């Protein structure tokens, strides 16, 4: 492919994760950034800032991810993180109905207060706890899941929020919608790719110079802080000889 070797335009996209505590926000990010998963991850304190690139056919999107803590006491800090964000991932736990209610509150708050063009994705996490995930990966098969979701709690299915319910809501509000499993990786990259694709070209900040990022750079190296510290970054990388 031609664009595989030629530098593609690159731009930064600020993304914020919101949602109730313990729905798996950090785990989604960890899966996306490090392709890793930890059982019983300890709660995030405050917020974590991570970056990850997402290669699209025509450009490279560099996500600057704010992974916020879900506890109530941190809620007042949220505006700081979603202000100027071009995208948001609102996460709920599809085994916990109240988390969807909380997610809806976040969506409403974002629509009210965040930048107008913000791309919001609604994500139901912990798909691995439902029995449709145990079958072969029906990754994006929301339709097929709908039936299964109706009859919850058969065979140890922990699902409490039906796909149809969440999907309908997402469509009403114009949100992207996914059900994911950070634990086994189902749909995680797809969420971020879909967001990257949904970011309107116009809302992207000016593309970086060709030298700033190389499309060949993959996820495991050179992942972060291009936009803030580009010049220094290279310097610090060389300085390690000591």
């Amino acid at each position, binding site marked *: 492919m031609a664009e595989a070797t030629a530098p593609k335009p690159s731009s930064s996209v600020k993304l914020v994760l919101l949602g109730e505590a313990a729905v798996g926000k950090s785990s989604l990010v*960890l899966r996306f950034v490090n392709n890793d998963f930890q059982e019983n991850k*300890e709660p995030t*304190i405050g917020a974590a800032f991570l970056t990850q690139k997402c290669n699209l056919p025509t450009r490279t999107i560099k996500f600057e991810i704010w992974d916020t803590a879900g506890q109530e006491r941190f809620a007042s800090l949220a505006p700081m993180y979603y202000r100027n964000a071009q995208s948001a991932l609102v996460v709920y736990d599809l085994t916990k109905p109240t988390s969807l209610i909380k997610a809806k509150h976040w969506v409403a708050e974002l629509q009210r207060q965040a930048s107008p063009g913000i791309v919001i994705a609604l994500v139901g996490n912990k798909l691995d706890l439902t029995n449709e995930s145990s079958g072969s990966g029906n990754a994006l098969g929301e339709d097929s899941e709908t039936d299964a979701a109706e009859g919850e709690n058969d065979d140890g299915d922990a699902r409490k929020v039906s796909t149809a319910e969440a999907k309908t809501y997402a469509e009403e509000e114009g949100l992207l919608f996914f059900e994911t499993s950070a634990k086994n990786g189902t749909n995680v990259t797809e969420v971020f790719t879909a967001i990257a694709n949904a970011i309107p070209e116009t809302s992207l900040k000016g593309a970086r110079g060709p030298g700033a990022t190389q499309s060949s750079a993959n996820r495991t190296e050179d992942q972060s802080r291009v936009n803030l*510290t580009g010049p220094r970054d290279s310097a*610090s990388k060389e300085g*390690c000889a000591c």
Partner: protein
Amino acid sequence: MRHSSDQRKSHSHDRLYAPIDTAPTATAAKEDGITATMTYDGENEAPKHRTHADSDESMATITPQEDDGTTLEGHEQRPALPPRPSLLGDRPTTPLSPRKRPALQSKPTTAVSSVDIQTLSFPDGSRGTFPTPGSRSVSEAGHGISGGTSTPSSRKVSQNGSEFDDSTSLMSYTPTLRANGDLASLLDEGLNSQSPAWKLLSSQADNVNLFETIDYEDNALLNFDQEFDEVEAVDSKGGNEEQVLLLWKAKLKHYLILSSAGKPIYSRHGDQNLINGYIGIIQTIISFFQDAKDPLMGFTAGGTRFVVLIEGPLYFVAISKLGESDSQLRAQLEALYMQILSTLTLPTLTQLFTNRPNTDLRRPLEGTETLLSSLADTFTKGSPSALLSALECLKIRKSQRHTINNTLLKARTEKLLYGLVVAGGRLVSVIRPKRHSLHPSDLSLIFNMLFEAGSVKAGGGENWIPVCLPGFNKTGYLYMYVSFINAHDGEESSSDQRPSTAGSSPEDEIAILLISTDKESFYELKQMRDDVVAQLESNGSMGIIKAAVRQGRPSTADIVPGTQLRHFLYKSRANVQFMMPSLSPDFSSPLARRKLMSLYHNLHASTHAKHSHVKVLHCVARDSNSLVWTTPLFEFYCIAGPNTSRAGLTHGANKVIQWVKREEERVFIIGGAVF
């Protein structure tokens, strides 16, 4: 070879204090008679007169009264010292004397007057007069130790120490003559309380290695292996209640936090169903005493000690079978309280309970259980830092630390309040505003969050954490930028992305902490962090830090080749920092470490007890031989195998102290960088 009581005599000769043997009775009689008011005067007077002491030879004594911030004790009981008439004329008359007299006269005492007990002579022939309760000296002849200088300035600095210990100790220049000659009695009263083994101390002990034998002293620690295992939830259907309860009761240490209305807030072990009943009982007991305006401080049931701390609407209870002293347990509870404040701030906490006295605090505290638990487990494992309320520093050269300090200072941004480089819980460098110092208890909360609890590190990336530092200001939040660098990825340069979470132990983590009062300053501090890291890389400091971290703490044998000491703690009181050698090889297992720490706790308790006058304490047990020595400058604790002679122990102690003195500016951060 045993060196308990028979050796005492020869040792006493070193000190020229043989006559003191009569002291204890007189002391006990007089303690009550001396009132706190006098000590204020004593405080004022003390610096003036202290200079009389031969600073090279004397160990003037300062006893922190950690558990008691209110009493200013003036024990000027030194009736034991025989009057030296030739010196009486030298005694400065102090305004104290008239006030002292009534007290003295009011109680039976063997002292003829306050005069004769205040003149000391030193082995080198010099003499000092000590007309105030504020000063006392123990002469330590022939050991070549010149540590115990007592100057007014050294005393002042030791006062701004940590909250549990030093800051409350400003009044505590307790004269402690008892320590002088009567080591045998010290051994008795110091350590017999916990372990029967102390009583069985026999001169025939022939085991060489520390803690080698499993005897009944160890019964207390039998279940230590399972101490940190989780107690499973009570399953009412499964009927496992009894079994769970047994497991729960087998824990050596419990921490409970509840509200004054009796709502459970936190429990280290056991789920809600299990503890609710106990919470109710405890609340009833505490409230009963509260109503009687006579707050419950603690009580003992069998071998278990219960200590209660009441902070506003919160009740904290520590339940320990590990033999810590009340004040040590109370300090641990206070640390838990500080952790809660650090999460909520005091005004929020107060407001929650003012609005609704039966607030369930678990919800506002949601997500911080891990912080409380890791704090609690740190105490249960035994933490020198918590015991001494001091911090540990990474040992690097002074010039290297200077370079790192300057790098931080140069990169400093407008919004920065504190900047720190920390490696595996050990401080590398701090910069701070001139008018604010960093409180050790605040730092230990931060270190707990970063290095013990793992909640921050596990996420990877950089972090922006609102945190209240109660020692700094308990009413509001600060914002802390944190990023980690792994000491082991030497090849990976600025490690802007923490590689995946697995693998590295907390000891290997280097963290850059930048603290600001402005919650919007993340990007600014992030920029500063990048500048600092780049600069540290280019001037080689990062390599130095990583090398020092990888190298770990030196072993005792590295510090003093051939020494019989197995481990020691050295706390510099002025700097509120401590130094210790590596725990391996003798103490690397959790159990050995806990025994070591229990011993240190005992030594600490003996020298810090409210009415303790002990400055030097030598303990002989079947499985260990230990020494504690406190002066205004330092506290020194060391331990050796059971066959070590007292001379060997003292020799080792002196060597270590000399070494620390020589390496002082590498081992400790002295002064620190201010802006």
